[in-house]
């Protein structure tokens, strides 16, 4: 009984993985085909970037503050407070900034896409679009996946900068460190091996958020329950996928840069 249940769950999981892969394949086939929905792409970029900016900024700022406040006593104990800018800089740029921003966007953008496309599916708006001669996959899905892919790295950079500024404020108040000294310490400790892999993985994070959100919403079951489920599962699946991508990204980066 238990084995059968496990087999069934595995079957469902593998079917889902197969369907998402097919959906991603369709994205790569259709993304180069005309017509290009450039206006809608820009609108989505504006919506996703603009609406997530405040959340990403506030979260980044608080993380910078908290991270520095909590690390300071330990570093002080070992007489290593001078390492604070380097440690915070590397941690935020390499890992904390991208993953936290991606997780916030998975909640904010991924669930939004899932719910929006889901309700469009349920209320036949996607069918209406198809009948009116528009390819809904190109108009709704491709524009959103591209927008998340390109906007997430920008949000990560902004989030990182704000987090570092938050960290600097703590250092300035507690240790009287100047802005110039703090940031020159941060930048001198950073290498290409820190910045490039984290930027590249941000693109993949953005792609995953858009892909899963669109997949869940576009294939939403009928009914309001289906819409809720689409939004919810978009966040859950994306969050899991983000950690998997992060793990793979670290392994690959390690091959090239020997982290």
């Amino acid at each position, binding site marked *: 009984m238990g084995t059968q249940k496990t087999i069934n769950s595995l079957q469902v999981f593998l079917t889902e993985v197969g369907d998402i892969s097919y959906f991603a394949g369709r994205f790569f086939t259709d993304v180069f085909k005309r017509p290009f929905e450039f206006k809608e792409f820009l609108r989505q970029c504006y919506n996703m970037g603009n609406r997530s900016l405040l959340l990403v900024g506030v979260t980044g700022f608080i993380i910078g503050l908290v991270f520095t406040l909590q690390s300071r006593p330990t570093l002080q104990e070992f007489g290593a407070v001078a390492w604070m800018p380097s440690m915070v800089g590397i941690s935020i740029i390499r890992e904390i900034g991208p993953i936290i921003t991606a997780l916030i966007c998975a909640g904010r953008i991924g669930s939004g896409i899932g719910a929006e496309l889901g309700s469009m599916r349920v*209320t*036949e*708006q996607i069918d209406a*679009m198809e*009948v009116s*001669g*528009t390819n809904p996959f190109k108009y709704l899905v491709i524009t959103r996946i591209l927008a998340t892919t390109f906007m997430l790295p920008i949000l990560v950079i902004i989030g990182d900068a704000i987090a570092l500024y938050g960290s600097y404020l703590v250092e300035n108040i507690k240790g009287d460190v100047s802005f110039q000294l703090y940031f020159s310490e941060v930048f001198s400790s950073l290498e290409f091996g820190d910045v490039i892999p984290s930027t590249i993985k941000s693109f993949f994070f953005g792609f995953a958020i858009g892909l899963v959100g669109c997949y869940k919403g576009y294939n939403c079951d009928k009914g309001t329950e289906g819409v809720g489920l689409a939004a919810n599962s978009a966040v859950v699946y994306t969050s899991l996928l983000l950690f998997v991508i992060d793990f793979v990204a670290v392994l690959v980066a390690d091959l090239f840069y020997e982290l």
Partner: protein
Amino acid sequence: MKKNTINSNAVITIRDLKKSYGDNYVLNGFNLDLYEGENLVIMGKSGSGKSVMIKCLIGLEEHDSGTVIIMGKNIDDLDHDELDELRTEIGFLFQGSALYDSMSVRENLEFPLRRHTKKFGEINDASPLVMEALESVGLARAVDLMPSELSGGMKRRIALARTLILKPQIILYDEPTTGLDPITSKEIVLLMKSVQEKYKTSSIIITHDVDCARAISNRMILLVDGINYAEGTYEELVEMEDPKIKAFFK
């Protein structure tokens, strides 16, 4: 209607249409001819496959087998672009209106216009066409409202205006009066009649509203168990003694 005989006078011909979901056959050899200028009502119980049929007709659902010919073109032989072009000649009024939530009424109406540049060319100012369509449904004042600000009846009228803006030759109505109060339902039926007279369209109306069917139909088909169970004018069907048919008109 003879199975497998294609009627060349019809604007839409369906022959032996079958559609199943797993083992459940929703359509099991459905046939239909729609003639120019005709209002054909298709009645059936909920879940009898009326909406599936209309979606197969316009290519929103793939049918398992059978033939669908629209204005002389077999839809199975058309590629995506050709099907899109054919769709400009067919308006579809969805059951729930299906207005785009994120767009105003004006944008809802402009959306299909800007997509069909082959039929209309590049349109710089769509306002005259938008206003003409809105005036024909009596809602020119709603042009800058959002769908969330409209009542159910208004949404249905705007959706009709959106189908009219492409100047289609055929209009498919999926339950046009469902969910509306009796007065609004009557208004929608009158509007459908005036649209048919003004634009000389041919229409397929899916409904289980007997009053709507009586008011608008030139001919009716009763869809039972996935097949044409009975066919004729409203008056002919009302006179039939078959209990299954009588049940519709109680």
